[in-house]
């Protein structure tokens, strides 16, 4: 008969719980310290670049030397908004650019809307299929609007459509974007600055993406910035500030920026083609492309730069419904995991320098292991509490510190925005956003973690769907 030494089991359990507790405390402290460091780096970068040129001064400084840009606009099922979006793009303030709209086999009248609005005719254009894409059915243009080229192709997804546009474009710089993104009139001129200042090394530039919900939109332009009325959208406004103004800017400062949003990013065309364009069969094609570029240049031992700029701004509509938002976030997480898996050789590989250690190390801890640690916490904390091995007083105290760090980061990102960019219109908006920066730590952050776990599950079970994004359409000005 086996004798059960209950005291020994209790002791072992306590030691195990203590180890877990110390691990959680250490990991939490490390993560928060890293994010505070990012906040400091972002503040330093914003302060360094404050007071940049605007309006005609911007044009005076950069227009003469700005290289031509091709805007790559994939469109699927955009019948209602595509014409206004393209009109808005065609009126951007930039010396030389073309707009390559790709109708990615839409089932609605997206193509017809374009053909009718711009009186386009079938044309031919010499091009080479370097980046893989589905069959191109036709090209359309008109002498009346020489900046516009419309590509009609079979459906293949966003990356496929971007590849088609990439093959057909001729400008040395390409700008990837979404058909429903709204670029500020001077966004291209601002974003091209690094390519003008460092033409030899600059490979990719990411711009800020901001939430357009609550803004006033006229003719495809944001004419008045506002705070969304929908609670979920307000929380996302803070989240975007933290992601772009803090995290991406800091990663850029650390020369380890791994993601440039598919909604607005500029790339030198030749290296993008050299790495085979966008990879098909992934939902994280934007991140994947940046990682491929890092690998390419580091393998070739060529100097290069990938940077993020906070000021060229692209506005986008965010989901106002939990279901849609959850699907979007699970997909983003799946994209990060797919990229990590495809390029796992980069992790801690000295050949890839900071990208391998810092960038991929962060993905490993936060994106790959994070959801599992989170999940373990949800199971172990109640279990330990029930077993009586958890000191509830300390648990609450550490939770308070964790929430406090969350508040510092969210409110800190808003403070950076206000002290250096000052785009929100009034005091009321700032107060609402500051409150959102506090509130989002209680519930929203935890739901986000749940979506990440769901994304991990979808990744593990090989679910590849994009999910549907139900758009409300931009609020029109009265």
């Amino acid at each position: 008969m086996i004798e059960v030494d209950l005291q020994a089991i209790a002791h072992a359990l306590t030691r195990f719980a203590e180890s877990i507790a110390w691990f959680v405390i250490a990991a939490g402290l490390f993560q928060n310290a890293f994010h505070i460091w990012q906040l400091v780096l972002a503040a330093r970068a914003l302060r360094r670049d404050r007071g940049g040129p605007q309006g005609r001064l911007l044009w005076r400084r950069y227009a003469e030397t700005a290289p031509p840009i091709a805007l790559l606009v994939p469109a699927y099922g955009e019948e209602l908004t595509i014409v206004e979006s393209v009109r808005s793009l065609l009126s951007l303030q930039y010396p030389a650019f073309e707009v390559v709209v790709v109708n990615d086999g839409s089932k609605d009248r997206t193509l017809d809307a374009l053909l009718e609005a711009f009186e386009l005719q079938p044309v031919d254009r010499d091009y080479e299929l370097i980046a893989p894409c589905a069959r191109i059915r036709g090209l359309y243009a008109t002498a009346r609007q020489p900046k516009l080229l419309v590509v009609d192709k079979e459906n293949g997804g966003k990356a496929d459509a971007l590849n088609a546009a990439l093959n057909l474009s001729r400008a040395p710089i390409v700008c990837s974007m979404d058909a429903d993104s709204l670029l500020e009139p001077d966004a291209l001129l601002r974003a091209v600055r690094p390519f003008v200042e460092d033409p030899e090394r600059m490979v990719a530039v990411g711009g800020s993406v901001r939430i357009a919900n609550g803004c006033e939109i006229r003719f495809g332009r944001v004419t008045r910035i506002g705070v969304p009325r929908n609670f979920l959208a307000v929380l996302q406004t803070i989240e975007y500030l933290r992601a772009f103004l803090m995290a991406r800017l800091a990663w850029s400062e650390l020369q380890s920026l791994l993601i440039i949003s598919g909604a607005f990013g500029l790339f030198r065309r030749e290296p993008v083609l050299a790495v085979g364009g966008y990879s098909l069969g992934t939902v994280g094609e934007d991140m994947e492309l940046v990682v491929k570029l890092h690998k390419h240049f580091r393998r070739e031992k060529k100097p290069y730069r990938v940077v993020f700029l906070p000021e060229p701004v692209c506005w986008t509509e965010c989901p106002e419904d939990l279901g849609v938002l959850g699907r979007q976030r699970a997909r983003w997480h799946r994209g990060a995991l797919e990229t990590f898996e495809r390029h796992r050789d980069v992790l801690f590989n000295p050949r890839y320098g900071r990208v391998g250690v810092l960038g991929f190390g962060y993905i490993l801890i936060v994106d790959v292991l994070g959801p599992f640690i989170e999940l373990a916490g949800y199971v172990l904390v109640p279990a330990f509490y029930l077993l009586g091995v958890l000191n509830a007083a300390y648990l609450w105290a550490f939770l308070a510190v964790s929430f406090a760090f969350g508040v510092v980061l969210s409110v800190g990102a808003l403070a950076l925005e206000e002290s250096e960019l000052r785009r929100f219109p009034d005091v009321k908006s700032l107060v609402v956003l500051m409150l959102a920066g506090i509130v989002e730590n209680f519930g929203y952050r935890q739901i986000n973690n749940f979506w990440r776990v769901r994304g991990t599950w979808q990744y593990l079970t090989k679910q590849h769907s994009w999910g549907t994004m139900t758009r409300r359409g931009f609020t029109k000005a009265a």
Partner: protein
Amino acid sequence: MPLLDVIWWIAALLVVSALAWMSGLILLRVVHARRTTRRAADRRQVEAALIGAMQGRSDVEAAFAPFRGRARLLAETLLDFLGIVRGEDRRLVVGALEHLGADRTLRERVFSGSLPGRLASVEALGAFPGPETQFALIRASTRGPAEVRLAALRSLWQAGGEVDVARLVGGLEGGEFPPSGAFSELLRLVVEADPAAAVAALEQLGRSAPARGLLAQALGAAGAYGAIPALTAQAQAPEAPVRTAAIEALGRLQHPAAQPVLARALGDSDWQVRSAAADAVGDARLAGLVEGVANLLDDPVWRVRHQAAAALGKLGPAGTARLEAVARSDHEVARHAAALVLAGVA
């Protein structure tokens, strides 16, 4: 203090600090809103004063008086204004500002204050020719961030000062200036005024590849025919980017003397050189190189095939005849490239 209390205090301190930071900024916003409105009003007043100066009004001095020490405001408004004013009107405005001592304000601002203000002041000084301005700009071109130094040289150039090719190229090779678009543009202006100096710099032994590439580009853009021998030599440089720049420059010059070197470049091992050579042959209408260009119609690189087909289209009857022959041939790749040009699809 017990550890538990310390942890709670840390949490409270973090939240209070963040909220205090943001609350402070919210209070500042109230002040800033007034300041923004005031700045916009000031700018409108300076613009009105500049229009007054252009019209020769007598109250200009009084209109400018409140803004005499506001260098950045003056500089930015002036740069905007001068962007749309030319000739006699421009001379009147600059004369009036000089009379009021605005150039002195700008000169003082060049060496102190925020970077955007310094940069705008340096740029605006380009409108004020004179020894004092030139002296300030020469000083500014030797200190501070690279963008200020480069802007100072550009303004010095605009103000009639001397900026020579050797100074720019030396600065580039010494790491003083980055090979930026602004640098290339200034080099182009300086080379245009003194192509002989640029040729001498290009021919100097030990010159770096980036410098030779930029000099070749600038000579081509300047239309310096005297540079053809130097560019011909660079078209055989060991570095492909230099060869490409030299061939592009020869293409811009469109001179028949470049025919032998272009003929060689059509068979270069680097595709960018071959592409540039095909383009240059087309632009210079060198019908004698029809065969060499036609051979590129089945080049493994699409860009070269595309340029070769387009070049043949520019080479008159000989080129068209060659395109028609290729379009009838059984070589699929070349046939496609030729057919598109014949159909008018570039």
